[in-house]
């Protein structure tokens, strides 16, 4: 480590953290992960040098626009997309690349997914009973028929649908109910980790809350770990503990959810924040939308960008020049908001 270093990089921080708190070892670790797609002879790298940790019991929000690679990251975890480099560790066991068959099977049981479009992801020709218990069958997770029915029925109660609906088909349900069935199908496997890939983007605003509340309930009751992928920061703020903002395949800011709204540093985060529509005509009238232009960064080979820690648990992608700016901003502004928060808490 050079002496005039301004801040530690993400990897250094994480290494130290894990050494100091071995009991808080992350459930999922990305280390220098590279994901690419082959088209003909062309090999296009979408994600490069991804480092990310997901801790046990947290909801990590992954936010970015379409094409930023957020779905690719999610799908690389459960092996839908193959990685072309680096390691993805689940409970400190490698789960990408070539792995033994029984490890893959175990991983597939414990890592489940909720998909975006509830009408496209449910089998139109299978009734709810079949949809929900398909995974149970595949992994022989029940001793006899009674136990299977018991599991499915109790799951239906948990998602707030009457068990009579088990005989119905997906087209008979409304969008919110269908997505709840999607959640049931995922949760009946009693997974340790869930990838929720834009689970509410295709839903009406008025029923989004049902699904959000449901995911949150499961996180609390089952100690579930969730990677919540979305393009809308306002939704992610509500549900997640930490938020990773991703642009063009790279994490540009990683921070606690509330802190990200208090002190956004990266210009792309600011662009996302101003894009949130506010339910207030007067504010909207004089709101200015920040448009992010990726060319504003002058990253060179001598001064490359990396994810740096600007304050505890707040990481921003920057080169050395930008890092100085961010650090001074944190120094001026960080203290202020901290103080304000503090006094607000005391008054309560």
């Amino acid at each position: 480590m050079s002496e005039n270093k301004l801040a530690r990089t993400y990897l250094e921080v994480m290494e130290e953290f894990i050494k100091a708190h071995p009991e808080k070892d992350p459930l999922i670790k990305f280390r220098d992960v590279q994901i690419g797609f082959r088209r003909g002879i062309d090999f296009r790298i979408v994600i490069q040098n991804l480092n990310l940790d997901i801790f046990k019991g947290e909801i990590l929000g992954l936010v970015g626009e379409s094409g930023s690679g957020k779905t690719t990251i999610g799908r690389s975890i459960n092996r839908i997309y193959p990685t072309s480099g680096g390691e993805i560790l689940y409970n400190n066991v490698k789960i990408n690349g070539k792995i033994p068959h029984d490890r893959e099977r175990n991983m597939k049981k414990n890592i489940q997914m909720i998909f975006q479009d509830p009408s496209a992801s449910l089998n139109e020709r299978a009734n709810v009973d079949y949809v929900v218990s398909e995974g149970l069958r595949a992994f022989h997770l029940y001793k006899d028929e009674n136990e299977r029915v018991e599991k499915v029925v109790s799951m239906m109660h948990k998602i707030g649908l009457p068990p009579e609906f088990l005989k119905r088909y997906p087209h008979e349900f409304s969008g919110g109910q269908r997505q709840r069935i999607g959640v049931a199908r995922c949760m009946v496997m009693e997974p340790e980790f869930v990838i929720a890939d834009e689970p509410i983007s295709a839903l009406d605003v008025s029923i989004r809350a049902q699904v959000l509340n449901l995911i949150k309930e499961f996180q609390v009751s089952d100690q579930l770990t969730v990677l919540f992928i979305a393009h809308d920061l306002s939704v992610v703020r509500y549900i997640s503990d930490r938020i990773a903002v991703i642009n063009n395949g790279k994490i540009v800011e990683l921070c606690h959810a509330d802190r990200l709204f208090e002190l956004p540093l990266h210009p792309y985060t600011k662009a996302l924040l101003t894009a949130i529509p506010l339910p207030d005509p007067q504010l909207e009238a004089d709101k200015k939308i920040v448009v992010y232009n990726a060319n504003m960064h002058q990253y060179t080979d001598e001064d490359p960008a990396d994810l740096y820690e600007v304050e505890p648990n707040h990481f921003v992608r920057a080169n050395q020049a930008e890092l100085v700016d961010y650090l001074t901003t944190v120094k001026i502004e960080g203290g202020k908001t901290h103080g304000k928060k503090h006094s607000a808490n005391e008054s309560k």
Partner: protein
Amino acid sequence: MKKWDLKKTEKIDKNELEYDINAPIRTLSAGEIVRQAREQEELYRFSDNAFPDDVDSRGKDAILKVRHLSLGFLSHGKKTHVIRDVSIDVFQGETLAIVGESGSGKSVFTKTFTGMLDSNGFIDGGSIEFGGKDLAKLKTEKDWLGIRGKRISTIFQDPMTSLNPLLTIGFQITEVLRLHRGMDKKTAKAEAIELLRRVRIPEAEKRFNDFPYQYSGGMRQRVVIAIALACNPEILICDEPTTALDVTVQAQIIKLIKDLQREYKWTVIFITHDLGVVANIADRVAVMYGGQIVEYGTAEDVFYNPAHPYTWALLSSLPQLGSKEDPLVYIRGNPPSFIEEIIGDSFAPRNEYSLKIDFILDPPMFKISDTHFAKTWLLDKRAPAVEPPKIIQNLRQRMQESADELKRELKVGEAK
């Protein structure tokens, strides 16, 4: 309190109407009594501040006048009534937002303006006045040609399905120019490139011969706007133009529509299910539920002083307003099915604030101010006073605070 006998046509003392906020209506026998109560239109007259028959125009130019429009669909030999007695004015140069859940009839309602109802749909009452014509009476395709696309244009939700994937972007824009404005190929091309530039597509000449799949979602929607722009319509109907798009792109598209509207003096009808989106663009907001407009007013009226429980529910379910400690609010139940006849207020079964009367009689429009109207019995003089949910009280103040904070943060960043 005396139970009122609805079987007789005798006048009913208005003070005898029962209001009980906690009593679910199931206790009251439905059936015959209810059906006859509906016929008792006299009941409407009890409400002193109930809105009169006609819509108030405030002396503005109404470019489109909808009066008592009802329409339905024939399916499996059954008639369903999807739009029920809707009256509204669209003023020259304004942006009217129509907000509602899926299945509230908002898309179907605006499809009647361009004659794009499905073949089993029928208008069975009311009128749509536009440019001296009654659009509800138009029958043949020929009648519609001069209006659809030319004077009233529509932008649809999914730009991928509204563009032909087999034709180039350039062809699809010039087609409109040649058909509606009679241009030759060369001038049409020049005009089309100009239009693409107007909707801020970079390097328009180069992208003229591209196919839709080569464009991103936001760009495709820009092309659709360019096509709508080609005929310089008087009314532009935007049917959920941003629902399929990202939040950042959504903000840009809304800004584009707003800028173009200022430039071309369009009248815009903006349909969405997200009340959060329309605060930016709307001059007036109409909230639709169960095939009826349940509340309308200026954007300020609806956002700062919402009166209908459905508007309350829509507003409070916005995740922007949610706090981490409490579960988010959502609207229980499903929108009404149109297959069965709706008795009383269509929102009543899902409404936390429903009164007994809501299950018997459809409320009239009540006037709150000169610009603000809502269709709920809560506004009746005899109704118990009800507070809107906490989450949307002081909405103005709370939004201001959070916005100030954000602005401050952004400024700090910019100053550096």
